[in-house]
């Protein structure tokens, strides 16, 4: 790819990268997972019969139309919600509560507004009793290019910057798994592409497991090793697609034939699923 423009940070102005995740850790198993909600006396199936194995270091995108239960899936893996049936295992251990080995990067407004960017990033380190939490936090803020903004409060940062702080905050606890819930969904198109490239740059050197929820087909292809499509009515997996694009991926990745073929296949599948809620009298909505 001649016009490959992967802007790797130069050694001079970025701090050293953290250690890769310990080899072989960060495996996720979803076994016959179902989540049902009782809402207004009626039962809503947010997710049904999901079986999924994610290997350590794998980047998996969960793709689907709104209401397909993709965020529910992430919330269960995060430990925020309990499954109605089935179970989630992380490295063989049953997930029952949230934990710092699998922090979440949320869509927006998840930074603590009463803390500066630096204190937000230092939060997880403080919880772990880290002796030099602020020094470490400064380092991670530098990794996402925001070293100079450490004293700013979230409301003084742009939406993209807030998401980068959120990413730094999650990375700072040196997790084996990173859970991302449409983290770039609220950003403008330009910023979103830059964020995707920055995330890949970090991940390609670091290689922790990533579960990335999105409704954006392009984003899923550009980032992931594997794409799991969730469908509507019922909310079950409709297929898994391996992304055969070489890494490291840069701007050129989107111009390849492999990208286009996969995009078309996914577009048709998602379109089929999305249409189910058009004209249907009974829309199931879970976010």
């Amino acid at each position, binding site marked *: 790819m001649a016009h490959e423009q992967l802007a790797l940070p130069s050694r001079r102005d970025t701090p050293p990268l953290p250690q890769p995740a310990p080899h072989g850790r960060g495996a996720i198993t979803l076994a016959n997972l179902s989540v049902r909600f009782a809402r207004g006396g009626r039962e809503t199936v947010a997710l049904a019969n999901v079986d999924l194995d994610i290997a350590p270091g794998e980047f998996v995108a969960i793709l689907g139309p709104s209401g397909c239960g993709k965020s529910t899936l992430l919330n269960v893996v995060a430990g925020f919600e309990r499954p109605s049936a089935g179970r989630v295992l992380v490295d063989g251990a049953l997930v029952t509560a949230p934990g710092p080995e699998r922090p*979440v990067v949320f869509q927006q407004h998840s930074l603590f507004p*009463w803390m500066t960017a630096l204190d937000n990033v230092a939060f997880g380190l403080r919880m772990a009793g880290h002796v030099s939490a602020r020094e470490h936090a400064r380092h991670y803020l530098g990794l996402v290019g925001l070293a100079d903004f450490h004293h700013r409060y979230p*409301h003084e940062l742009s939406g993209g910057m807030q998401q980068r702080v959120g990413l730094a905050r999650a990375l700072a606890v040196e997790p084996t798994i990173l859970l991302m819930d449409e983290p770039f969904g609220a950003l403008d198109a330009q910023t979103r592409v830059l964020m995707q490239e920055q995330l890949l740059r970090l991940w390609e050197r670091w290689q922790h497991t990533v579960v990335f929820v999105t409704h954006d087909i392009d984003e899923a292809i550009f980032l992931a090793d594997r794409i799991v499509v969730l469908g509507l009515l019922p909310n079950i997996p409709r297929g898994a697609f391996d992304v055969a694009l070489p890494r490291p991926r840069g701007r050129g990745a989107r111009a390849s034939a492999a990208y286009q073929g996969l995009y078309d296949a996914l577009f048709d599948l998602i379109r089929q699923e999305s249409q189910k809620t058009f004209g249907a009298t009974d829309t199931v909505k879970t976010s």
Partner: protein
Amino acid sequence: MRPLVRAGLLGLTGIAVLLAAWTIAARKLDNTILLPPPTALLAGLRETLLDGTLVRDLAASLKRVLCGFGLAATTALALVVATVSFRPMRQLVLPVLALLRPIPPIAWVPIAILWFGLGDSPSYFVTAVAAFFPIFVNSLAGVGIVEEQHLRAARCLGAGRLALIRFVYLPSALPNVFTGLKVGLGQSWMAVVTAELIAAQSGLGYMIELNRLQLETPRVLVGMLVIAVVGALMTLGLSWAETLLFPWRQQQRRKGAT
């Protein structure tokens, strides 16, 4: 900067118009007992400052407000903590407070005199009653407005129950607690004067009532002026402290308004 200058000029003009109208009305009426001119008020201010009575009365009122307010803040916040950490407490306490809340502080004055006699004590009680409800209601609401997303973020970064209280619930609630304290202080400042009109032998309320009986109207107005200025200074000071303590709040409010 220019809109600020404009607002300042307009504000000064408003005060000037009030003073002018007052002067004209006083001259027409020509009755220094019913309406003395602003100049008589200035003379009264000088006299009361020179003989020390104004400072003494102001100090007496401030002392009562601070004691009553401190008492109210302590009990209200303790009760909020109790209702939050022990759920049945909420159901036990809320109906009682809903019943007591509509009683205006002034209606407590007679019973306060019966219970505590004349002097400082009934004023402590009445100012505490006045400050209690705003502090309690705002603080309790503050505990309720914590954002689920902040709780989740903190939990997935390793925060336990105590850390959640200290780093998420508390900072989420503090701005509302502060609002409650601000409103509560204003309420008890108004209440102290009410109480002193009836139940005390010192303080600004007492000074107003005494001078009314002696037909020293300029001094009545001096008392009212001091109440106004001190009340305004309290509000200004607390608003300033609020922007220092909670720098993120202003922006949020501005965003919410648009």
